[in-house]
């Protein structure tokens, strides 16, 4: 903080135009945060690339291994399967959560008072941590003491963690339960920002509620849909706690998605090189998909939804 005093300007320098340079902080003010962030986020990101070319068991020092680690990772069928499972879970998550959260958000944006009260309850899952949500549902869906054991007419043998289909269903359901309120809040805020003029004009033209929804609300929500989808994709590809607590990647490796595979390789199998390689792949895939979504949707051109108003 020594340099701070240096940037303090002299008193009443009237020859300089006020507001141009006086009272403007030097770059030194940004330094502590930048260094801290670089140290704990940027350096690890670089290190993950470096470590993916080494073998390291967690003890001693990593040893350079060239492309051996990458070759080993790509020869593991479980890894290839985990990539597909990640994509599958992400796609299912987006497909299930997007319509649900749009409907819920648009509904909650309505002016009625009962909606405010109900919304307060609707958004309670947001208050629970991912860990708490997973532990709660693991207990509720317990094969012996949970709801499925009480409703065998619906759940068959009651073990929702015994088959791949059921386990994936559980994972999609639990993340939907947990994250839909969050995305609904995005849509609620965006819906409230839609100019009322549009609806009034549509009503004069005789458009009903459904047509208004498809021709005004949905197009106006475009930017929010893209934001929310990017968050879902990145979140879906990096889902970890839910899998660790609910299925532990099982049955067998049937729900071992990439993020869990990475954790399992590194911290259970002590193959940190392989873990780093998978981690790097996840970052690249998530970034590429986000960029593609941004490009395809034209989001980067910042097309406004308020043109002509």
């Amino acid at each position, binding site marked *: 903080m020594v340099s701070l005093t240096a940037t303090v300007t002299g008193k009443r320098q009237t020859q300089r135009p006020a507001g141009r340079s006086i009272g403007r902080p030097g770059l030194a003010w940004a330094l502590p945060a930048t260094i801290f962030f670089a140290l704990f986020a940027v350096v690890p990101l670089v290190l993950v690339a470096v470590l993916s070319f080494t073998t390291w068991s967690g003890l001693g020092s990593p040893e350079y291994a060239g492309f051996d680690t990458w070759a080993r990772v790509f020869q593991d069928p479980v890894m290839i399967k985990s990539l597909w499972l990640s994509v599958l879970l992400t796609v299912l998550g987006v497909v299930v959560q997007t319509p649900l959260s749009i409907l819920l958000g648009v*509904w909650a944006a309505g002016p009625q008072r009962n909606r405010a009260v109900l919304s307060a309850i609707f958004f309670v899952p947001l208050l629970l941590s991912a860990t708490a949500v997973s532990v*709660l549902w693991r207990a509720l869906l317990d094969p012996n003491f949970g709801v499925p054991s009480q409703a065998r007419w619906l759940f068959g043998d009651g073990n929702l963690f015994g088959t791949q289909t059921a386990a994936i269903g559980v994972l999609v359901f639990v993340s939907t339960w947990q994250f839909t309120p969050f995305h609904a809040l995005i849509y609620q805020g965006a819906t409230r920002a839609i100019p009322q003029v549009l609806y009034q004009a549509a*009503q004069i033209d005789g458009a009903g509620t459904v047509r208004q929804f498809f021709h005004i609300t949905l197009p106006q929500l475009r930017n929010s849909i893209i*934001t929310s989808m990017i968050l879902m994709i990145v979140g879906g590809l990096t889902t970890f706690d839910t899998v660790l607590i609910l299925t532990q990647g099982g049955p067998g490796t049937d729900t071992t998605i990439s993020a869990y595979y*990475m954790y399992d390789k590194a911290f259970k199998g002590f193959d940190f090189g392989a873990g780093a390689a998978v981690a790097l792949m996840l970052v690249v895939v998530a970034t590429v998909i986000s960029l593609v979504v941004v490009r395809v949707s034209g989001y980067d051109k910042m097309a406004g939804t308020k043109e002509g108003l």
Partner: protein
Amino acid sequence: MRRRPNYLAGLGALLWLALVGLPLYVMLGATVQTREEYSAGGPLAFPRSFTLDNYIQDFGNGFGQYFLNTVVVTVSVVAIVLLLVPPLAFTIVRNRGRGTSGVFRLFLLGLAIPAQAVIVPMFYVISKAGLYDNLIGVILPTAAFCLPVCTLILTGTMRDITSDLFEAMAMDGASVRRTFFQLVLPLSGSGLSTIVVFSALQAWNGFLFPLVLTQSEETKVITLGLYNFRTQYGINIPGLLAAVVLSTIPVLLVYLFARRALVQGLMGVGGK
């Protein structure tokens, strides 16, 4: 103009209410029953007895320690964020140099780094720094990963301060430091409360960093405690769910008393 009630939307809303309400009801109901009653009646039965033994048992199994550790982590993370982000956001908003836009871009880039991607090198860095199994080793990365979102939120707030006010301060010959403390900080209240809530939630709910960077009972935070209880308690579901309820109480209190700040904090950049 009067619209007819939308029955379909109402039905959907009721369905979602059941989907959210039922699990919460089962959770609360289970925690006040004895283990035997829960096993006999199943999760959907209405509790016939009332006992707080499940909660007391959790504290006997170390929940108090976990709670304390989580408070330490949360308070430290919030303190670091409050110390680092306001000067940073002030610079980004008011400094016009080329370096500043580079710094801002770095933090925007940081938004895209998922914590999952760096746990392996983080384990390496923290171990080499001798901070493994130490709460400091959890606090530092957790705080660092709060910075991008908090920076974005606070620069948004500070941009709304009109330049007239800055000019007036400059006319008075106010130093940078005075401008910061007497103009910028007092006018950034809403942004500041949002970043406090956001970073507090991140720290309180954080799971990944504690999972890979700590191991002993003395450094366990609540989320890890829950994870451990799940395997340790086995069939003691009421005890497990009581711990889930306990872990949520502080967040629930904030929700009741500062709903707006909490919702904004929860949304992070998502709300922008």
